[in-house]
């Protein structure tokens, strides 16, 4: 009986994202117009049981140079030291310290390392799992000035707002 439960994918503990079925968006605003953009390359590793969220662990790695704003000039500019600074900081990472349930969804609290700056952030997500896999979706807002992204003449709240949305829809497969 216990073996049957252990074998069911719905209670599998370790998950990894499926790259071609997952999206990670960042949404800057230009003169109050949102410009949904994507990171092309990222990885989510998750240890998670929805019945025991506190034992879970979420780790996300984003290869920042894969940022795509559907504009060749913008894509080149955001690599620069004043923006993402990808040559010195090629990866952004999130590591959770705690996952809690909040009503219908969960919140992973942890540390975001972005452009060499570490900040505590809370990542809410909704969770669905079945025998084929799992899906986590959520959104949060970050302040780009916390990380020195867009400095100097771009530091003001206009034309590029400080608030940048992040939105994710991750398809996960059971992994070991």
């Amino acid at each position, binding site marked *: 009986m216990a073996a049957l439960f252990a074998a069911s994918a719905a209670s599998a503990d370790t998950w990894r994202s499926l790259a071609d079925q997952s999206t990670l968006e960042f949404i800057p605003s*230009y*003169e109050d*117009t949102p*410009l949904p953009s994507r990171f092309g390359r990222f990885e989510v590793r998750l240890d998670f049981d929805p019945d025991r969220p506190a034992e879970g662990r979420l780790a996300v790695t984003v290869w920042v140079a894969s940022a795509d*704003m*559907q*504009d*060749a*000039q*913008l894509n080149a*500019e955001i690599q620069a030291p004043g923006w993402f600074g990808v040559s010195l900081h090629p990866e952004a990472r999130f590591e959770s310290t705690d996952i809690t349930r909040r009503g219908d969804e969960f919140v992973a609290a942890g540390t975001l390392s972005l452009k060499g700056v570490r900040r505590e952030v809370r990542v809410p997500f909704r969770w669905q799992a079945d025998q084929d896999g799992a899906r986590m979706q959520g959104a949060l807002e970050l302040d780009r000035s916390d990380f020195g992204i867009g400095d100097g*003449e*771009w530091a003001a709240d206009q*034309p590029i707002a400080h608030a940048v949305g992040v939105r994710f829809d991750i398809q996960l497969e059971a992994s070991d």
Partner: protein
Amino acid sequence: MNHRSPRERWGAVARFLHWAMAVLILGQLALGWFAGELDSSPEKIQWMTGHKSLGITILALAVLRVAWRLLHGRPTEPPGIPAWSVWASRASHAALYGLMLYLPLTGWLTASTARLPWDLWWWFEWPRLAAPDPALHEVAEDLHEIGVWLLVAVLLVHVAAGLWHHFVRQDRVLARMWSDS
């Protein structure tokens, strides 16, 4: 007042459009070059908004001008103009009319296929001819830049020809675009 171009003269509307657009087009060439050379910055965005806004304004005037030209025709050539000069005149003027539509349209396409929106004269958002598309943007931008070089070349011929008519042939070609006497 009769605005129709009489047989040997340009009318007031045609003359006004010619010189007004000459000023705007020369200004636009300078503005496009200057703004294009700037490093990316919030100021560059403003300069480019000015360049794009002036481009659409020139496009509107160009459409008006072509319509006026089709409706009212042009004066006849003064007597004794050599045939090669007539041919050169027709070709360069056709090129100028074409370029004063081609350049703003390719510029509009270039701006359309970039990601950032922009407001016409900082007033309201100007629509896109196409959706943001990096590949199409590059093509449109190249087409636009080729047009700039063509315009500069034809303008040099145009200005030189005007001066040739006035100072060498000493005919009325330039004078009648300048005034109605």
